[in-house]
């Protein structure tokens, strides 16, 4: 990438794979379990977090020298909450339909540990440009896992993708269902997300032995 120096590019690329917030740092698991029963919800959540983490990291980074260290967590919370409320209100006024889909996630974004984690670990100690890249990178790393999990859970659990039936009709037995295939009801409940995330972690570590922790 000519646009970014190698160091800067790594800020974006690292969290996508070798330092992924979900599969390596095991952060943001709660939302990964809760909302990935559908692909559409996963994508919406990924975009929301991308915005909040990208902008939030820049804001915190700009304020890093004036934030009193005693109340820095509170300041971080206020920044996230404010951003989320602004997004929510603007969407409610200008994209009402989308805001209804999003409403569930507002609370989840504020409590997402990845956001607080990046503010605390990166934005407080780095300049705004680097913080922005780091925010985007981590949000993408989070989003990629969310979308993979959402894809498999919706496909195997409901036989649909983005709400469109792709495997036929399970009730009238058409398409794949004519062969005796059934939707796996387990996939739409949250424990299934844990198992899918677990499989992703397994595949990732078996391909990159350096990620395996020693005991």
């Amino acid at each position, binding site marked *: 990438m000519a646009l970014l120096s190698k160091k800067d590019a790594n800020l974006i690329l690292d969290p996508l794979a070798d330092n992924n917030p979900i599969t390596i740092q095991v952060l943001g698991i709660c939302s990964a379990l809760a*909302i990935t029963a559908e692909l559409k*919800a996963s994508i919406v959540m990924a975009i929301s977090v991308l915005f909040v983490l990208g902008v939030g990291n820049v804001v915190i980074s700009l304020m890093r020298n004036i934030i009193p260290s005693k*109340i820095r967590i509170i300041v971080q919370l206020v920044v996230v909450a404010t951003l989320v409320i602004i997004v929510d209100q603007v969407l409610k006024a*200008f994209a009402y339909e989308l805001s209804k889909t999003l409403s569930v996630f507002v609370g989840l974004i504020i409590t997402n540990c990845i956001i607080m984690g990046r503010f605390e670990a990166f934005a407080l100690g780095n300049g705004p440009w680097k913080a922005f890249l780091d925010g985007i990178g981590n949000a993408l790393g989070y989003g990629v896992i969310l979308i993979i999990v959402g894809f498999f859970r919706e496909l195997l659990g409901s036989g649909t993708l983005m709400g469109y039936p792709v495997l036929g009709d399970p009730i009238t037995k058409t398409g794949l269902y004519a062969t005796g295939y059934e939707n796996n009801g387990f996939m739409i409940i949250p424990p299934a997300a844990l198992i899918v995330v677990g499989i992703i972690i397994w595949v990732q570590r078996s391909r990159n032995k350096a990620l395996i922790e020693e005991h």
Partner: protein
Amino acid sequence: MAINTDKNSYTVIFASLMVVVVGALLASLASGLGPKIKENERFEKQQNILYAMGVNQNVDEGSVNFIPTDRVEAEFSNYIKKQLVVNGNQAEEDNEAYLIDMKKQLDILKKGGEAKLPLFVGEKEGKTFYIVPMYGKGLWDAIWGFMSLDEHMVVQGVYFDHKGETPGLGANIKQRYFMDDFTGESILDGSRYAGVAVVKGNNDPLNKDKNDNEVDALAGATITGNGLAAMVKESVTLYKPYLETIRKK
């Protein structure tokens, strides 16, 4: 110039400033966007009421399609012939009845007060629809809806919505494949106002039996389904005295 950010006085000043700045920002945002948001909510309610009586842009099976927001106000006054406020078996007209907040009215009822219960009378192709609003609890938060009935107390259509049910599970109460099942079900069991229950494993997934007061439940959404059935039951019980006056036996 380095600021000593560890000083208590600095911390207090910073916190106060932050609260004032953020507060002012959010307050101005809320008052600036408030009217637009209110309008969106008003349109949505009109869309929902019309949807329940079958005035929508649904094509075959698939997704929910409302009357577009730019036309909804005109269509609403076109199809909804009367807006009533019901009290026992009495009713009086009120052209703003659709703005009544069901939640507040149910709270008043619970405290033993006198509630204003809205009911809408719609007409489409010579048929009359009685649209009953409802409000209840799902798993995480509020659920609400509208149900249109004919003179025989047979459901003609429903619209359900929710505040925060789980996507892919409880949130599916607003999907066509769930809501469409209600159409044709009777809310009466004999002459008892039974509502429509949401039942698991009733051996009727295609919902062919329209006289069982039951629809098939959503997998993984037991509590939302139970809450919804309780909401329907509460609403038909509440409106029973008035519905009895219009029912054709």
